[in-house]
């Protein structure tokens, strides 16, 4: 990782809200004919209590009748980042890197469409996919491009709009048993949003100075989105599956045990201790995971005051940059702060980055 600076940051959270009751109504409709009444009752009670347990009340979603989509939200976030551009970074954008798990585009790239919508013609634009870690991986790439002189100013953009993808896949929440719902719960807690970050060479302020990730493939099927008709190796779910599936129990256990160890190791490599960290921004998977990671690291919860999960749900690759942008908007970031970004993604990926504000 070569030091780079954040020259602009912005996010867009759509104004629509999907409540727990909305989700429960969908689950009930999907299973009314397939489950016995007692089983359906237990299914709905279990879902409601798990929402309580995770601390989620709503999920961000496009407002009915709005034009919020993967592209339009990405463009809005990008415009905010460009409008916030600092005076020490005035070179034109010469590269756009787009990411997002729910990126609906295979051809052309989302980055190409976003550039056109922004009315700019960067020399380079492309998409990457590193699932929930897409944004941090794009920052790492941007750092290499800027350090090599390939680019001077790079706009990293991400958006998530799960309903767009789910509708396209014809997804539903029908389950064969109450227990199976644990594998579908992840699709009941996802939200929409977008974020963007303008990056340039080190200006001495708002510097991204460290990035590490650890990847393994043992849990490759911990979270899946399978497009109907595509081939996939046999999974842990024991039957052919379509749409969104995730092993919530296995994921929580793995993250709570392995993610803090990875972050602690990163801090040690960076010659830092948890007490050196001023502010923490975490991936948003639920209060249970957030608090467990902080507790294991010995970092007070007060150092991670911005957590959008309860209102927005899990916004995938948008979580980290959106929560950072909200922290900035709320005046919570101060010169000299050491900001630790803690991320995870299916596969698994563990990632951490350090910003000196």
């Amino acid at each position, binding site marked *: 990782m070569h030091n780079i600076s954040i020259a602009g940051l912005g996010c867009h959270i759509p104004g629509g809200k999907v409540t727990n009751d909305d989700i429960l109504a969908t689950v009930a409709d999907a299973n009314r004919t397939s489950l016995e009444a007692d089983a359906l009752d237990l299914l709905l009670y279990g879902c409601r*209590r798990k929402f309580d*347990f995770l601390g989620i009340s709503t999920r961000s979603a496009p407002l009915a009748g709005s034009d919020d989509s993967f592209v339009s939200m990405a463009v809005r976030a990008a415009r905010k980042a460009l409008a916030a551009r600092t005076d020490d970074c005035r070179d034109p954008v010469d590269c756009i890197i787009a990411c997002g798990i729910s990126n609906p585009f295979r051809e052309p790239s989302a980055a190409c469409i976003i550039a056109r919508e922004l009315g700019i013609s960067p020399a380079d634009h492309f998409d990457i996919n590193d699932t929930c870690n897409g944004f941090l991986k794009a920052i790492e790439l941007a750092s290499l491009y800027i350090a090599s002189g390939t680019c001077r100013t790079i706009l990293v953009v991400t958006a998530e709009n799960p309903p767009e993808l789910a509708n396209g896949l014809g997804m539903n929440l029908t389950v064969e048993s109450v227990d199976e719902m644990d594998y579908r719960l992840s699709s009941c807690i996802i939200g929409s949003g977008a974020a963007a970050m303008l990056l340039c060479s080190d200006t001495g302020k708002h510097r991204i100075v460290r990035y590490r990730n650890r990847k393994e493939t043992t849990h490759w099927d911990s979270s899946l989105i399978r497009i109907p008709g595509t081939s996939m190796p046999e999974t842990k779910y024991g039957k052919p599956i379509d749409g969104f599936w995730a092993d919530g129990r296995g994921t929580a*256990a793995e993250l709570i045990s392995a993610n803090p160890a990875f972050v602690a190791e990163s801090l040690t490599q960076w010659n830092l201790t948890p007490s050196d960290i001023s502010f923490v921004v975490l991936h948003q998977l639920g209060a249970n995971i957030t608090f467990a990671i902080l507790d294991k690291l010995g970092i007070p919860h007060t150092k991670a005051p911005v957590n959008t999960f309860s209102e927005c749900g899990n916004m995938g690759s948008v979580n980290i940059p959106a929560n950072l942008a909200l922290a900035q908007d709320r005046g919570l970031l101060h010169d000299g702060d050491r900001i630790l970004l803690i991320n995870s993604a299916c596969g698994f990926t563990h990632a951490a980055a350090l910003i000196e504000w």
Partner: protein
Amino acid sequence: MDYEQFVTMVCDSLGLERSAITDQTSFLNDLGIDSLTMANFIIRLERRYDIRINLANVWDLRTVREAYEMFCAACASSSSPLPQEDNNNA
């Protein structure tokens, strides 16, 4: 329900050996019980005994003994008396 009966129910519900559990056994560190599995266990407890457990306390739940104390507190604050052991599966 006394503590020993509660431990038996925990073992039955979570598929654990009785010998694996002491007062200080940690759900996460010793038994590998993740938070969502714990939530499932609590949901079944609530349904079976018609009680409501404050999920905010679950974050601090470390040991089986603490789980029993939380269960007793939930029973005490509900309108029904502390449940007696039955032979139904949770």
